[in-house]
Protein backbone atom coordinates (compact mmCIF):
# COMPACT_ATOMS: atom_id res chain seq x y z
CA UNK A 1 0.00 0.00 0.00
CA UNK A 2 1.23 3.46 -0.87
CA UNK A 3 2.48 5.51 1.99
CA UNK A 4 0.17 8.42 2.77
CA UNK A 5 3.05 10.93 2.89
CA UNK A 6 4.31 9.87 -0.52
CA UNK A 7 0.80 10.10 -1.94
CA UNK A 8 0.41 13.57 -0.54
CA UNK A 9 3.77 14.64 -1.95
CA UNK A 10 2.74 13.34 -5.40
CA UNK A 11 -0.54 15.20 -5.20
CA UNK A 12 1.39 18.37 -4.45
CA UNK A 13 3.29 18.03 -7.69
CA UNK A 14 6.55 16.63 -6.36
CA UNK A 15 8.18 14.32 -8.88
CA UNK A 16 8.89 11.13 -6.98
CA UNK A 17 10.91 8.25 -8.28
CA UNK A 18 9.39 4.90 -9.11
CA UNK A 19 10.36 2.34 -6.50
CA UNK A 20 11.60 -0.95 -7.81
CA UNK A 21 12.66 -3.83 -5.65
CA UNK A 22 16.37 -3.02 -5.49
CA UNK A 23 16.12 0.67 -4.68
CA UNK A 24 14.29 2.69 -2.11
CA UNK A 25 13.36 6.30 -1.64
CA UNK A 26 14.84 8.40 1.15
CA UNK A 27 13.64 11.83 2.17
CA UNK A 28 16.72 13.67 3.37
CA UNK A 29 15.80 16.89 5.18
CA UNK A 30 14.48 19.53 5.61
CA UNK A 31 14.47 18.83 9.34
CA UNK A 32 17.58 16.66 9.17
CA UNK A 33 20.40 18.27 11.13
CA UNK A 34 22.91 17.84 8.33
CA UNK A 35 20.88 19.54 5.62
CA UNK A 36 20.39 23.00 7.13
CA UNK A 37 16.75 23.60 6.06
CA UNK A 38 17.45 21.95 2.75
CA UNK A 39 15.58 18.97 1.41
CA UNK A 40 16.76 16.22 -0.90
CA UNK A 41 14.80 13.27 -2.22
CA UNK A 42 17.27 10.45 -2.76
CA UNK A 43 16.88 7.21 -4.66
CA UNK A 44 19.12 4.78 -2.84
CA UNK A 45 20.61 1.44 -3.73
CA UNK A 46 21.96 0.15 -0.44
CA UNK A 47 24.07 3.03 0.83
CA UNK A 48 24.74 4.48 -2.63
CA UNK A 49 22.77 7.36 -4.04
CA UNK A 50 21.43 6.51 -7.50
CA UNK A 51 19.56 9.73 -8.16
CA UNK A 52 18.80 12.90 -6.26
CA UNK A 53 16.17 15.60 -6.54
CA UNK A 54 16.81 18.87 -4.71
CA UNK A 55 13.66 20.35 -3.25
CA UNK A 56 14.32 23.80 -1.84
CA UNK A 57 10.67 24.92 -1.64
CA UNK A 58 10.57 24.74 2.13
CA UNK A 59 11.61 28.27 2.99
CA UNK A 60 9.76 30.39 0.52
CA UNK A 61 8.79 33.76 1.91
CA UNK A 62 8.44 35.82 -1.25
CA UNK A 63 11.04 38.45 -0.35
CA UNK A 64 11.11 39.86 -3.84
CA UNK A 65 7.37 40.42 -3.98
CA UNK A 66 7.21 41.87 -0.46
CA UNK A 67 9.94 44.33 -1.45
CA UNK A 68 7.54 45.86 -4.00
CA UNK A 69 5.18 47.00 -1.24
CA UNK A 70 7.66 48.66 1.10
CA UNK A 71 9.56 51.98 0.92
CA UNK A 72 13.11 51.72 -0.38
CA UNK A 73 14.97 51.82 2.94
CA UNK A 74 12.71 49.39 4.86
CA UNK A 75 13.51 46.61 2.40
CA UNK A 76 16.99 46.35 3.91
CA UNK A 77 15.54 44.96 7.12
CA UNK A 78 13.89 42.19 5.13
CA UNK A 79 16.36 41.36 2.37
CA UNK A 80 19.22 40.74 4.79
CA UNK A 81 17.35 37.70 6.08
CA UNK A 82 18.17 35.96 2.82
CA UNK A 83 21.50 34.65 4.08
CA UNK A 84 21.80 34.31 7.84
CA UNK A 85 25.56 33.73 8.30
CA UNK A 86 26.42 36.79 6.22
CA UNK A 87 23.53 39.28 6.39
CA UNK A 88 25.64 42.31 5.47
CA UNK A 89 25.99 41.20 1.89
CA UNK A 90 22.32 41.64 0.80
CA UNK A 91 22.30 44.99 2.63
CA UNK A 92 25.31 46.14 0.68
CA UNK A 93 24.33 44.98 -2.79
CA UNK A 94 20.87 46.50 -2.45
CA UNK A 95 22.30 49.78 -1.17
CA UNK A 96 24.95 49.86 -3.89
CA UNK A 97 22.31 49.37 -6.59
CA UNK A 98 20.16 52.16 -5.10
CA UNK A 99 23.25 54.40 -4.82
CA UNK A 100 23.86 53.88 -8.52
CA UNK A 101 20.26 54.82 -9.39
CA UNK A 102 20.41 57.91 -7.16
CA UNK A 103 23.79 58.89 -8.57
CA UNK A 104 25.31 59.05 -5.11
CA UNK A 105 29.04 58.86 -4.54
CA UNK A 106 29.38 57.35 -1.07
CA UNK A 107 31.80 59.32 1.20
CA UNK A 108 35.19 57.77 1.96
CA UNK A 109 34.45 57.19 5.61
CA UNK A 110 31.27 55.29 4.73
CA UNK A 111 33.22 53.25 2.19
CA UNK A 112 35.79 52.33 4.84
CA UNK A 113 33.05 51.31 7.27
CA UNK A 114 31.21 49.29 4.61
CA UNK A 115 34.40 47.48 3.61
CA UNK A 116 35.25 46.70 7.22
CA UNK A 117 31.74 45.42 7.90
CA UNK A 118 31.84 43.22 4.80
CA UNK A 119 35.18 41.73 5.80
CA UNK A 120 34.05 41.17 9.39
CA UNK A 121 31.01 39.40 7.94
CA UNK A 122 33.25 37.25 5.78
CA UNK A 123 35.39 36.19 8.72
CA UNK A 124 32.31 35.51 10.80
CA UNK A 125 30.72 33.52 7.98
CA UNK A 126 33.83 31.40 7.43
CA UNK A 127 33.96 30.64 11.15
CA UNK A 128 30.30 29.65 10.98
CA UNK A 129 31.08 27.41 8.03
CA UNK A 130 34.07 25.86 9.86
CA UNK A 131 31.70 25.10 12.71
CA UNK A 132 29.29 23.36 10.32
CA UNK A 133 32.02 21.34 8.65
CA UNK A 134 33.56 20.29 11.97
CA UNK A 135 30.20 19.14 13.27
CA UNK A 136 29.58 17.13 10.13
CA UNK A 137 33.00 15.52 10.41
CA UNK A 138 32.49 14.77 14.07
CA UNK A 139 35.21 17.17 15.31
CA UNK A 140 32.92 18.89 17.77
CA UNK A 141 35.68 20.67 19.70
CA UNK A 142 36.79 22.68 16.69
CA UNK A 143 33.19 23.53 15.90
CA UNK A 144 32.64 24.94 19.34
CA UNK A 145 35.86 26.95 19.14
CA UNK A 146 34.72 28.46 15.84
CA UNK A 147 31.35 29.38 17.33
CA UNK A 148 33.07 30.99 20.31
CA UNK A 149 35.43 33.08 18.16
CA UNK A 150 32.52 34.14 15.97
CA UNK A 151 30.79 35.32 19.13
CA UNK A 152 33.54 37.92 19.61
CA UNK A 153 32.76 39.40 16.20
CA UNK A 154 29.06 39.32 17.08
CA UNK A 155 29.73 41.40 20.16
CA UNK A 156 31.59 43.95 18.04
CA UNK A 157 28.75 44.02 15.54
CA UNK A 158 26.36 44.62 18.40
CA UNK A 159 28.36 47.63 19.55
CA UNK A 160 28.55 48.98 16.03
CA UNK A 161 25.02 48.40 14.80
CA UNK A 162 22.85 47.51 17.77
CA UNK A 163 22.04 44.11 16.29
CA UNK A 164 23.87 40.87 16.93
CA UNK A 165 22.96 38.72 13.95
CA UNK A 166 20.91 41.05 11.74
CA UNK A 167 22.53 44.44 11.53
CA UNK A 168 20.36 46.66 9.27
CA UNK A 169 23.35 48.96 9.12
CA UNK A 170 24.17 49.79 5.52
CA UNK A 171 21.63 52.16 3.99
CA UNK A 172 21.54 53.83 0.56
CA UNK A 173 23.96 56.73 0.73
CA UNK A 174 26.23 55.40 3.45
CA UNK A 175 25.74 53.70 6.80
CA UNK A 176 23.14 54.24 9.50
CA UNK A 177 25.45 55.54 12.22
CA UNK A 178 29.10 56.26 12.89
CA UNK A 179 31.59 53.84 14.47
CA UNK A 180 31.41 53.99 18.28
CA UNK A 181 34.96 55.27 18.76
CA UNK A 182 38.60 54.28 19.18
CA UNK A 183 37.82 51.69 21.81
CA UNK A 184 35.81 49.71 19.27
CA UNK A 185 38.70 49.89 16.78
CA UNK A 186 41.12 48.61 19.42
CA UNK A 187 38.78 45.77 20.29
CA UNK A 188 38.45 44.84 16.62
CA UNK A 189 42.23 44.82 16.30
CA UNK A 190 42.54 42.54 19.33
CA UNK A 191 39.89 40.21 17.95
CA UNK A 192 41.59 39.96 14.57
CA UNK A 193 44.89 39.15 16.24
CA UNK A 194 43.21 36.63 18.51
CA UNK A 195 41.45 34.78 15.70
CA UNK A 196 44.62 34.81 13.64
CA UNK A 197 46.57 33.22 16.49
CA UNK A 198 43.96 30.46 16.75
CA UNK A 199 44.06 29.43 13.07
CA UNK A 200 46.88 26.98 13.85
CA UNK A 201 44.59 25.12 16.22
CA UNK A 202 42.00 24.70 13.47
CA UNK A 203 44.73 23.41 11.16
CA UNK A 204 45.87 20.83 13.68
CA UNK A 205 42.40 19.67 14.51
CA UNK A 206 40.50 19.97 11.21
CA UNK A 207 42.43 20.95 8.10
CA UNK A 208 45.54 18.82 8.65
CA UNK A 209 43.64 15.96 10.19
CA UNK A 210 43.92 12.53 8.58
CA UNK A 211 40.23 11.89 9.19
CA UNK A 212 39.30 15.09 7.31
CA UNK A 213 41.43 14.07 4.36
CA UNK A 214 39.84 10.62 4.25
CA UNK A 215 36.36 12.11 4.46
CA UNK A 216 36.81 14.96 1.95
CA UNK A 217 39.40 13.90 -0.61
CA UNK A 218 38.03 12.92 -4.01
CA UNK A 219 34.43 13.54 -3.01
CA UNK A 220 32.02 15.64 -5.05
CA UNK A 221 34.58 16.38 -7.77
CA UNK A 222 33.78 18.95 -10.45
CA UNK A 223 36.06 20.30 -13.13
CA UNK A 224 36.58 23.82 -14.42
CA UNK A 225 34.46 23.44 -17.55
CA UNK A 226 31.53 21.97 -15.66
CA UNK A 227 31.72 24.63 -12.96
CA UNK A 228 31.72 27.50 -15.47
CA UNK A 229 28.84 26.04 -17.47
CA UNK A 230 26.76 25.55 -14.35
CA UNK A 231 27.39 29.10 -13.15
CA UNK A 232 29.25 28.10 -10.00
CA UNK A 233 30.95 31.10 -8.38
CA UNK A 234 33.02 31.97 -5.33
CA UNK A 235 35.23 29.52 -3.45
CA UNK A 236 33.64 26.56 -5.24
CA UNK A 237 34.79 27.92 -8.60
CA UNK A 238 38.22 28.84 -7.24
CA UNK A 239 38.63 25.26 -6.03
CA UNK A 240 38.45 24.12 -9.67
CA UNK A 241 41.32 26.35 -10.79
CA UNK A 242 39.65 29.58 -11.94
CA UNK A 243 41.09 32.66 -10.24
CA UNK A 244 37.85 34.65 -10.26
CA UNK A 245 36.98 37.06 -7.50
CA UNK A 246 34.50 39.93 -7.81
CA UNK A 247 36.69 42.01 -5.52
CA UNK A 248 39.45 41.89 -8.17
CA UNK A 249 37.40 41.67 -11.38
CA UNK A 250 34.71 44.28 -10.63
CA UNK A 251 36.22 46.26 -7.73
CA UNK A 252 33.91 48.07 -5.38
CA UNK A 253 34.38 50.12 -2.16
CA UNK A 254 38.00 50.23 -1.01
CA UNK A 255 39.12 46.90 -2.47
CA UNK A 256 41.27 48.40 -5.25
CA UNK A 257 43.48 49.95 -2.53
CA UNK A 258 43.88 46.74 -0.56
CA UNK A 259 46.46 44.06 -1.07
CA UNK A 260 45.26 40.49 -0.94
CA UNK A 261 45.60 37.21 -2.78
CA UNK A 262 42.96 35.01 -4.34
CA UNK A 263 43.67 31.43 -3.29
CA UNK A 264 43.16 28.89 -6.09
CA UNK A 265 43.31 25.10 -6.04
CA UNK A 266 42.90 22.74 -8.98
CA UNK A 267 41.38 19.54 -7.62
CA UNK A 268 37.78 20.65 -7.44
CA UNK A 269 36.82 18.16 -4.73
CA UNK A 270 35.35 18.76 -1.28
CA UNK A 271 38.83 19.01 0.25
CA UNK A 272 39.92 21.70 -2.22
CA UNK A 273 36.77 23.69 -1.46
CA UNK A 274 37.42 23.41 2.27
CA UNK A 275 41.06 24.46 1.91
CA UNK A 276 40.20 27.43 -0.33
CA UNK A 277 37.89 28.65 2.41
CA UNK A 278 40.58 28.14 5.02
CA UNK A 279 43.09 30.20 2.99
CA UNK A 280 40.51 32.90 2.36
CA UNK A 281 39.83 33.24 6.06
CA UNK A 282 43.51 34.10 6.48
CA UNK A 283 43.34 36.63 3.62
CA UNK A 284 40.26 38.28 5.12
CA UNK A 285 41.98 38.71 8.47
CA UNK A 286 44.92 40.23 6.59
CA UNK A 287 42.54 42.66 4.83
CA UNK A 288 41.03 43.66 8.17
CA UNK A 289 44.53 44.32 9.52
CA UNK A 290 45.24 46.59 6.56
CA UNK A 291 41.96 48.44 7.01
CA UNK A 292 42.70 49.00 10.70
CA UNK A 293 46.18 50.20 9.89
CA UNK A 294 44.71 52.60 7.30
CA UNK A 295 42.23 53.89 9.90
CA UNK A 296 38.81 55.37 9.16
CA UNK A 297 39.15 58.52 7.04
CA UNK A 298 37.59 61.65 8.45
CA UNK A 299 34.40 63.02 6.99
CA UNK A 300 30.73 62.13 6.83
CA UNK A 301 29.41 58.62 7.24
CA UNK A 302 26.59 59.19 4.76
CA UNK A 303 26.02 61.47 1.78
CA UNK A 304 24.97 64.99 2.48
CA UNK A 305 21.65 65.00 0.67
CA UNK A 306 18.42 66.53 2.02
CA UNK A 307 16.44 63.61 0.55
CA UNK A 308 18.07 61.28 3.10
CA UNK A 309 16.34 63.13 5.95
CA UNK A 310 12.91 61.82 4.97
CA UNK A 311 13.72 58.24 4.03
CA UNK A 312 10.13 56.91 3.77
CA UNK A 313 9.44 59.52 1.12
CA UNK A 314 12.70 58.90 -0.73
CA UNK A 315 11.99 58.70 -4.44
CA UNK A 316 14.48 56.89 -6.63
CA UNK A 317 14.83 57.98 -10.29
CA UNK A 318 13.47 55.52 -12.83
CA UNK A 319 15.94 53.02 -14.21
CA UNK A 320 17.63 49.77 -13.36
CA UNK A 321 20.92 48.85 -11.74
CA UNK A 322 22.86 45.72 -10.86
CA UNK A 323 25.43 45.49 -8.09
CA UNK A 324 27.31 42.44 -6.92
CA UNK A 325 29.86 41.58 -4.25
CA UNK A 326 31.98 38.59 -3.37
CA UNK A 327 30.29 36.77 -0.50
CA UNK A 328 31.65 33.65 1.16
CA UNK A 329 29.07 31.56 -0.69
CA UNK A 330 29.87 33.14 -4.06
CA UNK A 331 28.88 36.00 -6.29
CA UNK A 332 25.91 37.75 -4.67
CA UNK A 333 24.05 40.27 -6.81
CA UNK A 334 20.99 42.48 -6.73
CA UNK A 335 19.05 43.74 -9.75
CA UNK A 336 16.84 46.70 -8.85
CA UNK A 337 14.25 48.35 -11.12
CA UNK A 338 12.67 51.68 -10.22
CA UNK A 339 9.73 53.46 -11.84
CA UNK A 340 10.42 56.73 -10.03
CA UNK A 341 8.19 56.12 -7.01
CA UNK A 342 9.02 55.62 -3.34
CA UNK A 343 8.89 51.82 -3.62
CA UNK A 344 10.97 49.52 -5.81
CA UNK A 345 9.24 48.27 -8.94
CA UNK A 346 11.14 45.00 -8.98
CA UNK A 347 13.98 43.60 -6.90
CA UNK A 348 15.73 40.39 -7.76
CA UNK A 349 18.47 39.02 -5.57
CA UNK A 350 20.92 36.75 -7.33
CA UNK A 351 21.88 34.16 -4.75
CA UNK A 352 24.96 32.10 -5.57
CA UNK A 353 23.40 28.99 -4.07
CA UNK A 354 20.77 28.84 -6.79
CA UNK A 355 23.57 27.78 -9.15
CA UNK A 356 25.45 25.30 -6.99
CA UNK A 357 22.58 24.24 -4.74
CA UNK A 358 20.25 22.55 -7.21
CA UNK A 359 21.63 21.17 -10.46
CA UNK A 360 25.25 20.93 -9.33
CA UNK A 361 24.30 19.32 -6.03
CA UNK A 362 22.04 16.79 -7.74
CA UNK A 363 24.88 15.79 -10.06
CA UNK A 364 27.60 15.68 -7.39
CA UNK A 365 25.53 13.58 -5.02
CA UNK A 366 24.85 10.91 -7.64
CA UNK A 367 26.95 7.87 -6.93
CA UNK A 368 28.08 9.11 -3.53
CA UNK A 369 27.60 7.23 -0.27
CA UNK A 370 24.86 8.39 2.05
CA UNK A 371 27.50 9.34 4.63
CA UNK A 372 29.09 11.72 2.12
CA UNK A 373 25.91 13.60 1.29
CA UNK A 374 26.12 15.99 4.28
CA UNK A 375 29.82 16.57 3.60
CA UNK A 376 29.18 17.44 -0.07
CA UNK A 377 26.33 19.70 0.97
CA UNK A 378 28.55 21.46 3.50
CA UNK A 379 31.56 21.72 1.21
CA UNK A 380 29.44 23.58 -1.38
CA UNK A 381 28.57 26.14 1.29
CA UNK A 382 24.90 26.07 0.44
CA UNK A 383 22.70 28.80 1.87
CA UNK A 384 19.15 27.43 1.39
CA UNK A 385 17.17 30.66 1.90
CA UNK A 386 18.98 32.33 -0.93
CA UNK A 387 17.71 29.67 -3.36
CA UNK A 388 14.16 29.95 -2.18
CA UNK A 389 13.76 33.67 -1.82
Amino acid at each position, binding site marked *: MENELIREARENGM*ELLPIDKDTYELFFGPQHMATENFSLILKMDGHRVVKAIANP*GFLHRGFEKLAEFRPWHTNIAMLLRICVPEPDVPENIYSMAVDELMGWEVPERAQWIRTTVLEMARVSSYLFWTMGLSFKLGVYTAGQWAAAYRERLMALFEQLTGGRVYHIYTIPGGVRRDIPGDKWLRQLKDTVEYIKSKLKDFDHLVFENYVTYRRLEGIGVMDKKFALA*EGVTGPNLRATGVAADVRKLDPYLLYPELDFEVPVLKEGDALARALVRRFELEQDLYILEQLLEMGPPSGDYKVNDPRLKALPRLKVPAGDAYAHVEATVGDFGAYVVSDGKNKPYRVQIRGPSI*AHGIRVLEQLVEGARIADVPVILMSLGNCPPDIDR
Partner: protein
Amino acid sequence: MADGQEEGVKTMREETIIQKILEKAPYAEGKVRRERRIEFKIPAERIRDFLMLLKEKDFESMMQITVVDWPNDGEYELVYQMWSYTHAVHAFVKTRIPRDLDKARMPTVRDIYPVAETYERDAHDFFGVYFEGNDKMEMPWILDDTEQGLFPYRKDFDWIGYVKKKYKILDRFDEDKDNYVI
Protein backbone atom coordinates in the same frame (compact mmCIF):
# COMPACT_ATOMS: atom_id res chain seq x y z
CA MET B 1 37.11 30.50 -21.53
CA ALA B 2 40.30 31.78 -23.07
CA ASP B 3 43.40 29.87 -22.06
CA GLY B 4 45.19 33.02 -21.00
CA GLN B 5 42.72 33.59 -18.19
CA GLU B 6 45.14 32.63 -15.44
CA GLU B 7 47.72 35.15 -16.61
CA GLY B 8 45.46 38.01 -15.72
CA VAL B 9 42.25 39.62 -16.77
CA LYS B 10 42.28 40.67 -20.37
CA THR B 11 41.08 44.24 -20.48
CA MET B 12 39.05 45.26 -23.48
CA ARG B 13 37.12 48.42 -23.72
CA GLU B 14 33.38 48.00 -23.46
CA GLU B 15 32.79 49.71 -26.81
CA THR B 16 35.04 47.23 -28.58
CA ILE B 17 33.17 44.30 -27.05
CA ILE B 18 29.83 45.73 -28.18
CA GLN B 19 31.18 46.47 -31.63
CA LYS B 20 32.51 42.94 -32.07
CA ILE B 21 29.19 41.44 -30.99
CA LEU B 22 27.07 43.74 -33.14
CA GLU B 23 29.11 42.85 -36.22
CA LYS B 24 27.73 39.32 -35.97
CA ALA B 25 24.28 40.36 -34.71
CA PRO B 26 22.90 43.26 -36.76
CA TYR B 27 19.42 42.75 -35.27
CA ALA B 28 20.59 43.86 -31.80
CA GLU B 29 21.01 47.29 -30.28
CA GLY B 30 23.89 47.78 -27.86
CA LYS B 31 25.07 50.48 -25.50
CA VAL B 32 27.55 51.03 -22.70
CA ARG B 33 25.82 51.77 -19.40
CA ARG B 34 28.92 52.50 -17.39
CA GLU B 35 32.28 50.91 -16.71
CA ARG B 36 31.91 47.10 -16.81
CA ARG B 37 28.19 47.19 -17.64
CA ILE B 38 26.85 46.82 -21.17
CA GLU B 39 23.32 46.39 -22.45
CA PHE B 40 21.70 44.83 -25.51
CA LYS B 41 18.16 44.96 -26.76
CA ILE B 42 17.13 42.13 -29.05
CA PRO B 43 13.91 40.69 -30.47
CA ALA B 44 12.64 37.71 -28.46
CA GLU B 45 12.89 35.18 -31.29
CA ARG B 46 16.66 35.75 -31.68
CA ILE B 47 17.50 34.99 -28.05
CA ARG B 48 19.11 31.62 -28.76
CA ASP B 49 21.30 32.94 -31.58
CA PHE B 50 22.35 35.88 -29.48
CA LEU B 51 23.26 33.89 -26.35
CA MET B 52 25.22 31.42 -28.48
CA LEU B 53 27.11 34.39 -29.88
CA LEU B 54 27.73 35.76 -26.38
CA LYS B 55 29.12 32.41 -25.28
CA GLU B 56 31.54 32.48 -28.22
CA LYS B 57 32.59 35.98 -27.15
CA ASP B 58 33.75 34.79 -23.72
CA PHE B 59 30.62 35.44 -21.66
CA GLU B 60 31.06 32.20 -19.77
CA SER B 61 28.49 32.51 -17.06
CA MET B 62 24.81 33.33 -16.75
CA MET B 63 24.06 35.23 -13.56
CA GLN B 64 20.28 35.28 -13.65
CA ILE B 65 17.15 35.74 -15.69
CA THR B 66 14.93 38.52 -14.39
CA VAL B 67 11.33 38.99 -15.45
CA VAL B 68 9.86 42.46 -15.00
CA ASP B 69 6.11 42.80 -15.39
CA TRP B 70 4.85 45.93 -17.21
CA PRO B 71 1.07 45.54 -17.25
CA ASN B 72 0.48 48.97 -18.80
CA ASP B 73 2.50 47.98 -21.87
CA GLY B 74 1.02 44.47 -21.79
CA GLU B 75 4.52 43.07 -21.82
CA TYR B 76 7.07 41.16 -19.79
CA GLU B 77 10.63 42.34 -19.96
CA LEU B 78 13.10 39.49 -19.74
CA VAL B 79 16.62 40.45 -18.68
CA TYR B 80 19.23 37.77 -19.26
CA GLN B 81 22.26 38.77 -17.23
CA MET B 82 25.59 37.44 -18.37
CA TRP B 83 29.01 37.76 -16.80
CA SER B 84 32.35 37.43 -18.52
CA TYR B 85 35.33 36.39 -16.42
CA THR B 86 37.64 37.13 -19.33
CA HIS B 87 36.59 40.74 -19.90
CA ALA B 88 35.13 41.34 -16.38
CA VAL B 89 32.01 42.78 -17.96
CA HIS B 90 28.38 42.29 -17.02
CA ALA B 91 25.95 42.22 -19.95
CA PHE B 92 22.22 42.82 -19.74
CA VAL B 93 20.34 41.21 -22.61
CA LYS B 94 16.84 42.68 -22.67
CA THR B 95 13.93 41.38 -24.64
CA ARG B 96 10.16 41.89 -24.47
CA ILE B 97 7.39 39.34 -24.86
CA PRO B 98 3.59 39.62 -24.56
CA ARG B 99 2.19 39.31 -21.10
CA ASP B 100 -0.79 37.08 -21.94
CA LEU B 101 -0.19 33.68 -20.44
CA ASP B 102 -0.90 31.91 -23.76
CA LYS B 103 1.62 34.05 -25.62
CA ALA B 104 4.31 34.39 -22.91
CA ARG B 105 6.55 31.75 -24.43
CA MET B 106 10.29 31.64 -24.93
CA PRO B 107 12.68 29.03 -26.25
CA THR B 108 14.81 27.47 -23.52
CA VAL B 109 18.52 28.26 -23.43
CA ARG B 110 19.51 25.52 -21.03
CA ASP B 111 21.53 23.66 -23.66
CA ILE B 112 23.68 26.80 -24.10
CA TYR B 113 23.92 27.71 -20.39
CA PRO B 114 22.85 24.67 -18.28
CA VAL B 115 22.28 26.87 -15.22
CA ALA B 116 19.44 28.60 -17.10
CA GLU B 117 17.23 25.61 -16.28
CA THR B 118 16.90 26.79 -12.69
CA TYR B 119 16.18 30.41 -13.58
CA GLU B 120 13.64 29.34 -16.19
CA ARG B 121 11.82 27.23 -13.60
CA ASP B 122 11.87 30.25 -11.34
CA ALA B 123 10.44 32.53 -14.03
CA HIS B 124 7.73 30.00 -14.81
CA ASP B 125 6.77 29.56 -11.17
CA PHE B 126 6.41 33.26 -10.47
CA PHE B 127 5.37 34.83 -13.77
CA GLY B 128 4.03 32.02 -15.94
CA VAL B 129 6.55 32.49 -18.74
CA TYR B 130 6.71 29.13 -20.48
CA PHE B 131 10.12 28.03 -21.75
CA GLU B 132 9.70 25.55 -24.57
CA GLY B 133 12.11 22.65 -24.37
CA ASN B 134 12.67 22.75 -20.62
CA ASP B 135 11.06 19.61 -19.24
CA LYS B 136 11.44 20.67 -15.59
CA MET B 137 8.83 23.39 -16.08
CA GLU B 138 6.02 21.44 -14.42
CA MET B 139 7.85 20.96 -11.09
CA PRO B 140 6.75 23.89 -8.92
CA TRP B 141 8.77 25.19 -6.00
CA ILE B 142 6.24 27.59 -4.59
CA LEU B 143 3.46 26.70 -2.17
CA ASP B 144 1.83 23.42 -2.93
CA ASP B 145 -1.71 24.77 -2.94
CA THR B 146 -0.98 27.36 -5.63
CA GLU B 147 -3.65 26.96 -8.23
CA GLN B 148 -2.87 26.60 -11.91
CA GLY B 149 -2.68 29.88 -13.72
CA LEU B 150 -1.98 31.81 -10.54
CA PHE B 151 1.42 33.41 -10.73
CA PRO B 152 2.24 35.37 -7.58
CA TYR B 153 4.86 37.83 -8.87
CA ARG B 154 2.56 39.31 -11.51
CA LYS B 155 1.55 42.86 -10.74
CA ASP B 156 -2.17 42.06 -10.91
CA PHE B 157 -1.93 39.16 -8.46
CA ASP B 158 -4.66 39.26 -5.83
CA TRP B 159 -2.77 39.04 -2.53
CA ILE B 160 -5.67 39.17 -0.10
CA GLY B 161 -7.68 36.60 -2.03
CA TYR B 162 -4.64 34.38 -2.17
CA VAL B 163 -4.05 34.47 1.59
CA LYS B 164 -7.66 33.50 2.11
CA LYS B 165 -7.31 30.52 -0.17
CA LYS B 166 -4.04 29.47 1.38
CA TYR B 167 -5.45 28.55 4.75
CA LYS B 168 -7.75 25.83 3.56
CA ILE B 169 -7.53 24.15 6.90
CA LEU B 170 -9.29 27.10 8.50
CA ASP B 171 -12.17 26.74 6.07
CA ARG B 172 -12.80 23.25 7.28
CA PHE B 173 -13.73 24.48 10.74
CA ASP B 174 -15.25 27.75 9.68
CA GLU B 175 -18.90 27.41 8.78
CA ASP B 176 -19.12 31.02 7.74
CA LYS B 177 -16.12 30.62 5.45
CA ASP B 178 -17.34 32.91 2.66
CA ASN B 179 -17.24 35.87 4.99
CA TYR B 180 -13.88 34.95 6.42
CA VAL B 181 -11.44 37.86 6.37
CA ILE B 182 -7.76 37.65 7.17
